[in-house]
């Protein structure tokens, strides 16, 4: 399972999302690879789930992965519910 987090440059917002998701996966005992991506280069990469800020939705319309959109990027509860929900759907 590969989970990608997306932002404009791949080291600010997406890195913060990755760190939250790593914590959540660890707490839940779930093994998955998490990678921060940037908008410029992500289209060549593959992931099962892409987690992104809600306003990036237009960039992800054609992307072949389960897309998870987050409104509040520091709300661990929102991130947890949505990411675990996506993982359940895929398992």
């Amino acid at each position, binding site marked *: 399972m590969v989970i990608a987090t997306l*932002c*404009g*440059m*791949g*080291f*600010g*917002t997406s*890195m*913060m999302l990755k*760190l*939250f998701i790593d914590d959540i996966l660890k707490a839940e005992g779930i093994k998955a690879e998490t990678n921060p991506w940037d*908008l410029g280069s992500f289209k060549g990469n593959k992931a099962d789930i892409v987690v992104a*800020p*809600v*306003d*990036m939705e237009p960039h992800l319309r054609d992307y072949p992965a389960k897309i998870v959109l987050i*409104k*509040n*990027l*520091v*709300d*661990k509860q929102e991130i947890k519910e949505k990411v675990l929900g996506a993982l359940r759907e895929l398992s």
Partner: protein
Amino acid sequence: MQLNELLIREAVQARLDLRTRDEVIQMSGKMLAAAGAVEPRYADAMKKVMDDLGPYCVIAPGIALLHARPEDGVIRSCLSLITLQKPIEFGHSSNDPVDLAFALGALDKKSHISALAELAGFLSNADFLRVLRGSADTPALQTSLFSFIEKGK
């Protein structure tokens, strides 16, 4: 690098009377440049990122995290904070208006990560946000921000 090293004290300013998103970006760049942490061109680079990539940098209700690229003139990894007298619309679909604006300068893709993790943890803490929003002037904000970080360790 830890959060209290990333944050530049003189680039933490409270209740500024700014009116537009671009004024917030320019002021953030100016403060970081005055501290010698970025080149003056960094502000325009942050504006270009916002213009090109959209308002996703409003990461949570009322909170913006601005940044550009290391090669846009970052001299050392740094973080500024502006709190606004009047909240400003940044154009986000659900997190507007903004009253807390952080600006990050990252020297590379790695060295600021542990500080960013600390910041993310604090931003999910309602007490921390109350302290930032409740500080009436710049000295009070600087003092309470750094002491909160110190205690949070």
